[in-house]
């Protein structure tokens, strides 16, 4: 038994770990920006599930899965915009709003599926976005198989991750986002539009989480299944904290959870004598353990979770 478990950790396992990490990494990349701007978004789950659903809807309507991805992005952005409206403009509590969004997202998509396609045995299928090995790069021993033999959406995730890191630390834009999350009052005092920065981060975060959701329904599968985001939004949030609010750190966190998921599936497949349901929660238990052991606010943006009130006087 032990030998067969050890034999699981091969190239295929690493490949699967990356594949499963990609949606989490995408969502986490957006969340890093949103949290750095001072907004705590528990509602990523909603952005992902909307992405997954509208991705399929778009693909079904247009017959083109790539247009589906565009639909997913738009749906995610609109969710981000709506979330932004509640927590930025109305200044609703971020935790409660995020939780509400998650619940609504899961419920609403399940509802829409039935309204649009009726109740049926098999869900509507679309053409999946196929895996596409990158020429040359996929030939690199080991790394090629692990990173460059994936879905094209994964490559988008890599590019976004690198861009996000550059924007965050090398551009005036990133500096503004960080300033707004650290001390919105002082940011405002030097003429930064706090509200606008936060809205843009919310929209960006929504759109990339939307793509993350679309990977699940257009690349991993080729259909929408109820609750298919399966808590990945929460894992993305855990990755952000684990990664100390750094895009690359968050990606590493995403990889840990992807690996947990891949391991869990493999253990099921070889039939370890543990009930499947217990194995399924492995990534989440992992998240919990990591959070308990490494969580600290150090490195967290100082104004994280605090609504910004514009009309306060500064003495």
């Amino acid at each position: 038994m032990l030998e067969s478990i050890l034999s699981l950790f091969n190239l295929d396992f690493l490949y699967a770990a990356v594949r499963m990490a990609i949606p989490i990494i995408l969502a986490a990349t957006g969340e890093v920006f949103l949290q750095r701007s001072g907004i705590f978004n528990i509602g990523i789950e909603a952005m992902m599930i909307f992405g997954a659903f509208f991705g399929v809807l778009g693909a079904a309507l247009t017959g083109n899965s790539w247009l589906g991805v565009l639909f997913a992005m738009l749906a995610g952005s609109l969710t981000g915009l709506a979330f932004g409206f509640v927590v930025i403009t109305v200044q609703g509590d971020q935790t409660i709003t995020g939780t509400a969004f998650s619940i609504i997202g899961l419920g609403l998509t399940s509802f829409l599926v039935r309204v649009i396609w009726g109740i049926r045995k098999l869900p509507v299928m679309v053409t999946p976005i196929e895996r596409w090995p990158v020429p040359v790069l996929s030939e690199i021993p080991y790394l090629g198989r692990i990173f460059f033999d994936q879905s094209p959406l994964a490559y988008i995730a890599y590019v976004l991750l690198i861009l996000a890191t550059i924007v965050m630390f090398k551009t005036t834009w990133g500096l503004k986002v960080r300033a707004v999350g650290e001390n919105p009052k002082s940011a405002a005092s030097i003429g930064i539009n706090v509200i606008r920065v936060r809205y843009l981060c919310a929209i960006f975060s929504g759109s990339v989480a939307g793509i993350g959701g679309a990977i699940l329904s257009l690349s991993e599968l080729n259909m929408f299944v109820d609750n298919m985001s399966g808590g990945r939004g929460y894992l993305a949030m855990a990755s952000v904290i684990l990664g100390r609010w750094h895009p690359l750190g968050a990606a590493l966190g995403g990889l840990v959870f992807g690996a947990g998921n891949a391991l869990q599936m493999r253990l099921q497949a070889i039939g370890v004598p543990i009930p499947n349901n217990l194995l399924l929660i492995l990534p989440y238990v992992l998240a919990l353990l990591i959070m308990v052991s490494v969580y600290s606010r150090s490195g967290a943006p100082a104004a994280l979770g605090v609504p910004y009130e514009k009309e306060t006087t500064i003495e």
Partner: protein
Amino acid sequence: MSTAVRMEEIVKRYPGVMANDHITLEIEEGEIHALLGENGAGKTTLMNILFGLIQKDSGQIYLRNTPVTINSPSDAIANGIGMVHQHFMLTPVFTVTENIMLVDRSPREPFLDHEGVKRRILDIVQSSGLHVDPDAKVSSLCVGDQQRVEIIKVLFRGAKVLILDEPTSVLTPKETDELFVVLRRLAKQGHAIIFITHKLREVMEISDRVTVLRGGKVIGTVLTKETSPDALAKMMVGREVFLTFEKTPVHRGQKMLEVIDVVTRAGQACTGLKGVSLDVSAGEILGIAGVDGNGQRELVEAIMGLQPIESGDIRIKGKSTRGCSTRKIIDMGVSNIPFQRQTEGLILTFSVSESLLLKEWRKPPFTRNGLFDKKVIQNTSKNLIKEYDIRTTGPDAKVGNMSGGNQQKVILARELSRNPDILIACHPTHGLDIGATEYVRQQLLNERDRGGAILLISTELDEILAISDRIAVFFEGQVMGVIDAANADLNAIGLMMMGIRLAEIKKNNSTGEKG
């Protein structure tokens, strides 16, 4: 010289108050213009309007004789107006360069230009004399350095008009002198500088002209060299003010507070106490002098039970406070005016009456059978507001909306009205106008004459000298010496503040005399 700024007939109303009542103000280029006025006179409001942080109800602003509209700080900045706020506007986790970089477009937009910005900062450091290290993290800088960063920030954007709201209230005397050198240099380079302060001595020293506000109105603008502190005080308050006190001789009673060889843990940002011993008796004021950050905060926190002590003992009326909670210590008759009014002294979203009763609400007559007695609370608050001359629209006003000086008065009213046996007063007149300062110092003296024991902590030597009976000087968590305040030797205090022990000073003096 030409006019840099003209604010004409500016009006700003808040519910129940005319914060600015048809104010007209003119600032020349190359001038240092002091803005003087009691707490709540409307100085900050007027400057916030000029800087676009709040909107005026009516009036017009002219820059170099052209009318301008300023709806936001960005408009103000674009028009060459910069402001250094009373509470700093810096991001602690950023470096100096990062903080400054934020205020202007990068030449390599959208990319940051660390090197270029650093070079420009060093240029400004050169020409203005504002010395800071561009690579230092702001959180590691002392208050004076942070203020220099704020001024550089303003100059970096090419501001020609500088607004400084009570810049010296956080500075040590030496830092203040350094700031004045910089301000004079900037004025000479043609900047117009608006300087808010409550300290008449500073007004006389640094300004060219003074405008005095009272109750939202301009009382007058005068040339500094044609006026005197007494005349200014009279304009400000509307009556004569006395800044020296008739002190009755001290009648020491029982020892109320004893601090015995107390040691607290030193941290990154604090020195900790390294064996501090002192005592305060009923009927006396013990002043603690020393540069900020030499253990004063640790002392207060140790007494109030907010910080554990590693060894030694603290006794209140002879009883050790080991293991006592802060509430217990408060109930033993200890009152505390904390260092930071906004974060430690008040909850800014609370109303005036809630803030006034923050320490007594549990007890009758305010609470009966577990319920608040609203009527008693309202009446008590109204009386305190009247007694302590708190300028507010009423007991239900939010303390967060009050002017800084009035926030301080709320704390004072709360702490003094409990008739404490021991009062720990940290910077009690911080941000208060001279009328209120006089009032507070008189209150502290009355408290002493009533038999209270007072520990007065202040970085302002004037204040310590004015009302203390004895003076202890702190340096790096230790007491350098305790001297009588009557005919205190200023030179000796200065030396002790720099870390020389009283015993050594005495020894040197006597050998000096012999030699």
